[in-house]
């Protein structure tokens, strides 16, 4: 490995990766630097850390009822993620393990439905929620997202790697289908669940447009909505906005770091 061409190749590779990593991580640094500066400084484009972190945090916590807002976001994202994983993995498993021509057709049409933009569903969904008196509730946010076609598809792909022998053996042992799913399938597919958790949690946490229309009162809002609201205020305090942005990003970051290894395994499994 010591010939010059290989060396140049190596160096080029490192350079590329370092550049990519730098570009990827830089906005995070920017966010953190922003949180330490005053709004006026941020507008002027100040690139160095300042001393306003404490003041910004105080302002943030006084203008935002964090405990309640965090609860809203976590409840919606957490409960929604759990429900989505359950329902979608059940469906993905079902489609893959119990084939039938009719269900294949249904699956095919599900894939087509992936192309529907949410902007088109907004108004009818809203009218539906209004008629069911579910406006300004957690259910209204969670329910439409529980059956996620993408996750069903993802679990189905991943299930292709699930060995049928395990299921057959379990059947011989007398386990019922739902028990096989619960006690054999779920533990084996841990990585897939981990990867799906990250994806779904992120999507629910970051959900913006739908909660905007549905959640009416201050005490029901999610952190994403609150931070977006801070940005479009008349005279936004950007220091506070950056603090909010950090808090809005932290949970997904933490979940990612916790589940990282399983996540990569999960992707590996699905891609086979």
């Amino acid at each position: 490995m010591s010939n010059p061409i290989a060396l140049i190749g190596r160096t080029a590779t490192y350079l590329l990766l370092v550049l990519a990593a730098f570009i990827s991580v830089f906005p995070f640094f920017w966010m953190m630097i922003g949180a330490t500066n005053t709004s006026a400084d941020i507008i002027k484009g100040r690139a160095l850390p300042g001393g306003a972190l404490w003041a910004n945090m105080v302002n943030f916590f006084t203008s935002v009822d964090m405990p309640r807002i965090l609860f809203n976001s976590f409840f919606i994202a957490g409960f929604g993620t759990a429900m989505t994983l359950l329902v979608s993995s059940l469906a993905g498993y079902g489609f893959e393990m119990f084939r039938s021509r009719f269900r294949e057709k249904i699956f095919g049409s599900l894939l087509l439905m992936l192309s529907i933009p949410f902007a088109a569903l907004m108004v009818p969904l809203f009218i539906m929620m209004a008629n069911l008196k579910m406006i300004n509730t957690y259910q209204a946010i969670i329910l439409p997202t529980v059956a996620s076609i993408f996750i069903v598809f993802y679990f189905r792909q991943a299930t292709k790697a699930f060995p049928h022998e395990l299921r057959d053996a379990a059947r011989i042992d007398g386990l019922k289908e739902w028990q096989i799913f619960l006690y054999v399938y779920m533990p084996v597919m841990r990585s897939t669940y981990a990867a799906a958790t990250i994806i779904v949690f992120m999507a629910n946490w970051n959900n913006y447009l739908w909660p905007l229309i549905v959640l009416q009162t201050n005490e029901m809002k999610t952190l994403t909505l609150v931070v977006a609201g801070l940005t479009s205020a008349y005279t936004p305090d950007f220091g506070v906005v950056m603090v909010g942005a950090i808090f809005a990003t932290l949970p997904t970051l933490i979940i990612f770091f916790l589940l990282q290894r399983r996540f990569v395994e999960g992707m590996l499994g699905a891609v086979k």
Partner: protein
Amino acid sequence: MGVGVAQSGLARKEQVSGWLFVMPALVLLGVFMIYPILWSLWMSFQVGRGMAFSFGGFANIMRLTQDPVFLRALTNTLTFLAIQVPIMLVLALLFASALNDSKLWGRSWFRTAIFLPCVTSLVAYSVVFRSMFAQDGIMNQMLMGLSIIDAPIPWLADPFWAKVVIISAITWRWTGYNMIFYLAAMQNIDRSIYEAAKIDGVPAWARFWYITIPMLKPVILFTTVISTIGTLQLFDEVNLITQGGPSDSTLTLSLYIYNLSFRFMPSFGYAATVSYVIVVLVGILTFIQFLAARDRRA
């Protein structure tokens, strides 16, 4: 389904189980997706403002052809698609192949770093990008500091540069995501194929082009389809970073639908029609992509 001996008790139980497993998802989808889609389809034939509908036949489709704003939104959306998706996927491939080397130092750090943008909060990164690309923002400062430009670029106030900002933002956000898919797929490729090729004297670039890429075809197809669908539905970034501007230069079809429903005098029927344009586009493009993938198989 076949009748006869094959339809034993086990097969029937399998059928029932199959349905039971998929039922919760299908019911939920039926209520929260199919009903709204059908309502939308019905709406697309209605004309009228606000809640005062009346049947308009194909009036909305005619309106599409004469609507300058729709054409702008369509052009923008397709432009984003044509430029952003290939750039992102090529970058993802490049990074994945760079990271595929098990002897590379700091490999998992690089992988984590490049994937990190995917876990950012949408609102957070929109705000950050807006402030980075402001007139006095850090981007201009860096570019001027490196003497690449001598006057600050009005990123968000210029129709061309605003598109650049959006493309950069989306690419920044989703390259890592696709990279992980490619990386995982690459690690499934048998090393011995590469060894054999190396022994035969095949150069690195040829190994990449003639071995890696073909073996990755299913994954590449998958990511292309997903990215296409995502970009055709682009809304969040253009809404939060540029609000579709300046002068509708970053207006996408989804944002136009949103405007038609909630910002302008509501034209729900016409909005529904525009949304079906997206559906049709996705259908066509996905079909083409599947076709292209199939043809090249020996």
